[in-house]
C-alpha cells in the first residue's frame, strides 16, 4: 500500500518522458520481429505438426514434429550506407511456441531503411562454444568433435520413404565441417537474410514468414530417401542446406502499433 504513491509518480514520470505523442518528434522506436511459418503459402502452425501430409518438391509426403532455429544481429541499413545493428540472438521454437516474437533489446532510430537483415544462425564471432546459458539450457549445442558452438536449425519429422514406411528425418543446420582428415575444416553456412526496405516511424512489428517447403527446393531439390539423417557431420549436406535457406524467409509486412 505504502509503495503505491511513489510507484504512480514513477509511472507518471516515465509516461511523460517516454511517450512523445506527436509522431514526428519520436526519434527511436521499439521494434519486434514476428516469425510466422507457411508451407508453400499455406499457413503452418504448431497445430499442423505431426501430419504426414505435406509434399515436398521431390514428391515425398512429410510432416514436421519439431522446428527450432536461431537468428541473430538484426541490422537496419540506410541509403547512405550506414547501418544500425542490434546485437543479440533469438531462438525461435515453433514446437513449444516460444521466441516467435523477438523484441529487440535496443530501440531503433526512426527512419526509412533501404534494407533490414539478420543472420540465420550465428556468425563465427558469435558462435563460441558453450557461452550462452539459455542456449545451453535448450541443449542447442553442437558437439565439440564438430567444432562446438551451436545449432542454427533443428527441423525434424517423418516422411514416407520409397518402401512406404514412415521414417524419421533430422534436418539439422550447423556450420559445415569436414571431419574426415586430421584437422577439422570449416566452411561458413550462416547467411544473411534480407527483408528489403522497411520504414520505421513508430513502434513496429516486422512480420516475417518462413516457407518450410523451401528448405527442400531451391537450388537443391532435396531427396529425403537419399538424405534424411546424420546431416550434422555431412559437409556437403550442410552447404546444401545453407544454399536452400537463402530463399525461405520473406517479409510479410510492417505493422505500426
Amino acid at each position: 500500500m505504502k509503495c503505491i504513491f511513489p510507484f504512480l509518480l514513477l509511472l507518471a514520470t516515465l509516461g511523460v518522458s517516454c511517450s512523445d505523442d506527436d509522431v514526428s518528434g519520436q526519434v527511436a522506436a521499439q521494434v519486434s520481429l514476428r516469425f510466422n511459418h507457411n508451407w508453400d503459402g499455406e499457413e503452418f502452425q504448431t497445430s499442423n505438426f505431426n501430419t504426414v501430409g505435406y509434399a515436398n518438391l521431390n514428391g515425398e509426403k512429410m510432416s514436421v514434429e519439431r522446428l527450432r532455429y536461431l537468428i541473430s544481429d538484426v541490422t537496419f541499413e540506410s541509403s547512405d550506407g550506414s547501418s544500425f545493428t542490434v546485437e543479440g540472438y533469438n531462438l525461435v521454437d515453433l514446437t513449444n511456441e516460444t521466441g516467435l516474437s523477438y523484441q529487440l533489446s535496443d530501440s531503433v532510430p526512426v527512419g526509412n531503411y533501404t534494407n533490414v537483415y539478420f543472420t540465420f544462425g550465428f556468425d563465427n564471432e558469435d558462435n563460441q562454444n558453450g557461452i550462452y546459458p539459455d542456449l545451453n539450457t535448450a541443449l542447442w549445442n553442437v558437439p565439440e568433435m564438430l567444432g562446438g558452438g551451436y545449432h542454427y536449425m533443428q527441423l525434424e519429422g517423418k516422411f514416407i520413404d520409397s518402401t512406404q514406411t514412415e521414417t524419421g528425418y533430422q534436418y539439422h543446420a550447423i556450420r559445415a565441417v569436414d571431419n574426415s582428415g586430421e584437422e577439422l575444416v570449416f566452411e561458413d553456412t550462416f547467411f544473411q537474410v534480407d527483408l528489403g526496405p522497411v520504414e520505421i516511424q513508430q513502434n513496429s512489428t516486422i512480420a516475417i514468414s518462413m516457407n518450410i517447403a523451401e528448405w527442400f527446393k531451391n537450388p537443391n531439390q532435396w531427396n529425403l530417401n537419399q538424405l534424411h539423417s546424420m546431416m550434422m557431420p555431412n559437409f556437403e549436406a550442410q552447404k546444401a542446406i545453407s544454399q536452400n535457406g537463402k530463399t525461405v524467409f520473406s517479409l510479410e509486412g510492417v505493422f505500426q502499433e
Partner: protein
Amino acid sequence: MKRPIIIVLFLMLLVACSKSEGGEAPEYTATPLSLDVPAFFQENILAPVIPITNPLTEEGVALGKKLFFDPILSADNSISCAECHAPSSAFTDTDRFSDGVNGVLGNRNAMPLFNLAWNFDERFFWDGSATSLEDQVFHPITDATEMANTWEKVIGALEANSEYTDMFLSAFGEGEIDSLKVARAIAQFERTLISGNSKFDRFLAGELELTEAELNGRDVFMDETRGDCFHCHGNPNNPLWTDNLFHNNGLDSTFVDLGLGRVTGDPADNGKFKSPSLRNLAFTPPYMHDGRFATLEEVIDHYSEGLQNSDTVDPLMKKVAQGGVQLTEQDKADLKAFLLTLSDDEFISNTAFREQ
C-alpha cells in the same frame, strides 16, 4: 539518455518504500537460505526456479526434510517419501514398481530426485502431470497406491505433535498448519538436492583424467553417426543431462501407458515420457518409466537394436526399421563406462540429505 533518470527514480522509490515500512511491526520471516549452486551450473545454464511464493529458508528446508523422512504422512504410519526415494539410491528405490501402503504396487518406476530446481518448465512425473514441486506433493500423500492418506488426517497428526507445531511456526510464522505449508516445506527441501560432483564433473573441472574407454564412450554419446544421445540427454555444456522434455524413445509399438498423451489428450503425445537425467544411473536401476530394464546393457541394446516403431516414435530415433543405431560391442561397453562417470558418490553420501 533516459536511463539515468529512471535509475534515480528507482532509488527514490526504494528510499520512499523503506522509510514508510520502517515504523511497523515486521511480518515474521524465517532465515533466508540461498541454494548452494555449483559454480559450473551458474556459468553454464539458467538460474534455478524458486517461486517467489516459496522462498527457501533454513527453517522451511529443515521442516521439509523432517516431513520427507517421516511416515506420519502415510495412512498407517508405515511409509515416508524416503521409502520410495532413498538417499542411498539417489532418492529413488531399487524396485521396478514401489510398494505403497499395504503393499499396493504402482505402475511406474519411482523417479530419482536431484537438480529438480532446474526443471524450467516445472513439469514433473514421467508424464508431466505435476506442474510444480509444490503441486507434486499433493499426489503421493493421497494416492491409493502410495501413502493412501487424507489431508485431514495428515494435518491432524501434525497439529498433535508439538515438535511439528514448533517447526511450522518457525518456518511459516503464526497460523494453522495446512496442506500448502506441508507442500511448500517439502518442495524447499527437494530444491536443495543438488548433484554436481560426478567423475565427469571433476574431469570437466580438470581435476582428473578419464580412461580411454570412458572418452570413447563420451564420443559415442556425442556422435550423430553412432549413439547420438546428446540431442535429448545433453552435452558437457549442460550439467543436467536431460532436456526435461517428452519423447517416445521407441520402447513399444502399442502403449499400455499413454504417458504425456493421457495428460494432454493429444494422440500425438501417446507413448511420450520425460527424458530422465543420466546422472546417477549407477544408483537408480531399474530403468525407464516402467522399470523394464534392469541393467544399462539392456538400455544400450534397446537403443542399438531394440527400437519399436510407432506413429509417435521420436524422429531422433534413427534406423528404427533396423532396430536402432547398431553400435559395435566395443562402443556399447565404452558408452556404458561413460554413462557411469555421470554418477555422483558424494551426492548419495551427503549427510545434509540424510535423515538425522
